[in-house]
């Protein structure tokens, strides 16, 4: 995916590309344009720092497998939540 304007990008694109930016998955020129934007836009720089920090914190979490007896209840809870979110009554 590439930024829309070949000369500079806008804040909305920083939000759109932040994951690609932090994982170095952007085309080099687009990466450079995003860096240039961060230098002139403190709110976007803060946003990128927050996402970076969140990713780092998530990386420190231990993987946890719930005990087998709790799984059906968790699955049911998730199903209910999804139905409420989607407004789907289900079969």
């Amino acid at each position, binding site marked *: 995916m590439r930024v829309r304007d070949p000369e500079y990008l806008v804040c909305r694109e920083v939000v759109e590309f932040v994951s690609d930016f932090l994982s170095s998955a952007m085309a*080099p020129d687009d990466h450079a344009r995003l860096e240039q934007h961060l230098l002139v836009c403190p709110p976007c720089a803060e946003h990128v720092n927050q996402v970076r920090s969140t990713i780092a914190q998530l990386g420190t979490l231990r993987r946890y497998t719930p005990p087998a007896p709790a799984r059906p209840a968790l699955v049911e809870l998730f199903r209910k939540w999804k139905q409420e979110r989607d407004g789907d009554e289900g079969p």
Partner: protein
Amino acid sequence: MKAHKFLATGARGPLSGFAWPTPRGDSKGTWVEAEGALLQCSRGVHVCRPLDLAHWIHDELWEVETSGDEVDGLDCIVVRRARLVRRMDAWGVNGRQRFASACVEHAAAQVTETVADGVRQLLDDARFMATNGYVTISAYTAALAVGRIVSQEPSAYRREREWQSAWIASELLATHMPTR
């Protein structure tokens, strides 16, 4: 090769936070060296040629010495190794303020009475920011104003950035600005 690099206060990379080894007494800073194939934005030491300067404006401007292989990047050059030589005192409060004012005036000279209100608003914003010491965003906004003038060619923004870079090079660094 001599090049330049903008850093945050305390000789830190503005985005990476990397603490650059600073010169001590008569000694230059320790070399900072990259390993592996040089790649823009990924691997290598990124420094400015004169015409790149305006894109990376920050608190401190340093002269750096580079050596080894190098590759061109967007508004930068990626080199194998570099070290800080000296901080450019010309990029102080006065120098920055002069630069911001020059950017606004140069942009204003291109704004005719027929431009859209949006362009004029950008120019007013740039002037306000320059007056209040927001040099980086002021220069950017001034270039943006020029780029938004309908009658300008599509590359007007980048051309204005080159003019700003040339101003820093000639007025503050006494460096000849090569043309593309």
